[in-house]
């Protein structure tokens, strides 16, 4: 084999721009851009992310505006604060479990965990229990802040707060299992799903406005989301109504279905990852 490249200093200079020149700087910056563009081209999930957030923001705050036009301000304020706090329960439940899993990937520790005798169910249970701690800490802090700043007490919702939060947490965990399944199936590039999946449900579940403002098609979808019953119930309670136990029971049943489906999906993707050798690639 002949090495034809001129390895002298002059030769090196002719091969590349002088390292401190503007041309070299432009080339290096261009290299980063080209690399990211290539990554974008290769990842439909990243392309999806570009449109995801603007659409969500537009839908949520647009419908909220429609709702606010017909409401009295004091009720709206407590409703908004209650919605924000309960939304955090769902959001944290989904994210904390997913982050627990993603941290294994970020630290290249996933294979170490998967060669232990820990079963998938044990692993998921551990993630869920750990998330409970973080959810409790986060919600406590936010509730104190809401009381200090706006005089809004989360316990205004009454005893219904317990089942409300339980329904949201279970739904959040099931979304996390789905996100983890997506990462197992599609690789690290899919971790954006872990951050964003829960937001798919924000405009549909009537977090900040009643589902009655949604078109009928979206109302039908909202009816099969457990969180919908929580946020509708919260508004009922804050408006002086009784806790809708019947709706909460329906939400609980939907939660059971969500968890069952999410765990089934996780089992399926884990088997697929083992079959296709994708699990091993998380160690590379």
């Amino acid at each position, binding site marked *: 084999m002949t090495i034809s490249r001129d390895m002298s200093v002059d030769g090196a200079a002719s091969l590349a721009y002088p390292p401190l020149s503007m041309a070299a700087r432009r080339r290096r910056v261009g290299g980063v851009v080209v690399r990211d563009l290539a990554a974008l081209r290769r990842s439909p999930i990243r392309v999806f992310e570009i449109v995801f957030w603007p659409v969500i923001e537009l839908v949520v705050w647009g419908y909220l505006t429609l709702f606010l036009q017909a409401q009295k301000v004091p009720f709206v304020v407590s409703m908004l604060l209650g919605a924000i706090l309960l939304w955090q329960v769902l959001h944290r439940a989904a994210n904390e479990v997913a982050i627990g899993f993603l941290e*294994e990937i970020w630290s*290249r520790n996933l*294979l*170490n965990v*998967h*060669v*232990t*005798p820990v079963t998938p169910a044990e692993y998921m249970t551990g993630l869920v229990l750990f998330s409970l701690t973080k959810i409790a800490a986060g919600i406590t802090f936010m509730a104190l802040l809401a009381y200090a700043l706006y005089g809004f007490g989360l316990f205004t919702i009454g005893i219904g707060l317990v089942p409300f939060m339980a329904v949201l947490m279970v739904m959040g965990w099931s979304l996390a299992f789905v996100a983890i399944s997506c990462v197992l199936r599609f690789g690290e590039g899919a971790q954006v799903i872990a951050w964003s999946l829960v937001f798919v449900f924000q405009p549909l579940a009537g977090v900040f406005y009643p589902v009655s403002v949604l078109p009928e098609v979206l109302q039908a979808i909202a009816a099969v989301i457990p969180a919908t019953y929580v946020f509708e119930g919260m508004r009922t309670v804050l408006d002086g109504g009784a806790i809708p136990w019947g709706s909460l029971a329906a939400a609980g049943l939907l939660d059971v279905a969500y968890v069952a489906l999410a765990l089934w999906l996780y089992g399926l993707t884990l088997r697929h990852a083992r*079959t296709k050798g994708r699990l*091993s690639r998380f160690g590379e």
Partner: protein
Amino acid sequence: MLILEAEDLAKRFGNVQAVDGISLRVGQGEIAGLLGPNGAGKSTTLHMLLGLITPDSGTVRMFGLDLARHRTEVLSQVNFSASYLGLPGVLHVREVLDAFARLYGLRRPRERVGEIIDLLEIGPLARRKVIELSSGQHTRVQLAKALINEPRLLILDEPTAALDPDAGDRIRGLLVRVARETGTALLITSHNMREVERMCDRIHFVSAGRIIAQGTATELADDFGVDDLEEVFLKVAREGAVPA
């Protein structure tokens, strides 16, 4: 006593036959080596033995138990270390070992962590974050993790790849001692021929997903008509040679 018995393992990824009918047996206290060029199928084989990859065909039995049916029981007596794996960077070494001691269901995790820290002589690292460790220190902590459950079978994928000669020599000595004194079976891959010659009782030479030769280092050199294992490796990697 037979610790590991893998029969006719095969694995295909798309058009690539990564492993093509590999069979292995490793006995108690034995140190077996899996040797071969990059892409020969060594890591895929190890990952099948660990249940990370499901074989297309073939069976894996450890301690008389079928891995596919008794995953939890089998894996509680096995451990693994690889140069390409990481550990949670923000945790202290002691915390990492404590976590793994618990993942392996040990009764007295703290006591065992103390023992393993003494065995690996990593006391000065115990309160340091993993992310702050040098690659050599990281390897030692990985090995501490790999020994935390007193495994009956220890699978090591290039265990000393990141170590300097002194540290590598100490780790090799320790591993041989573990195998001889505790009866732990070792299955290792390595690109360090001297390491393999020094440590392994039996070497399985892998090429293109198949075991093309096996025996001691001397037997393999004789089979290929060369002086040592390194020459065997070069003949296989460059010429695709098979034993005479």
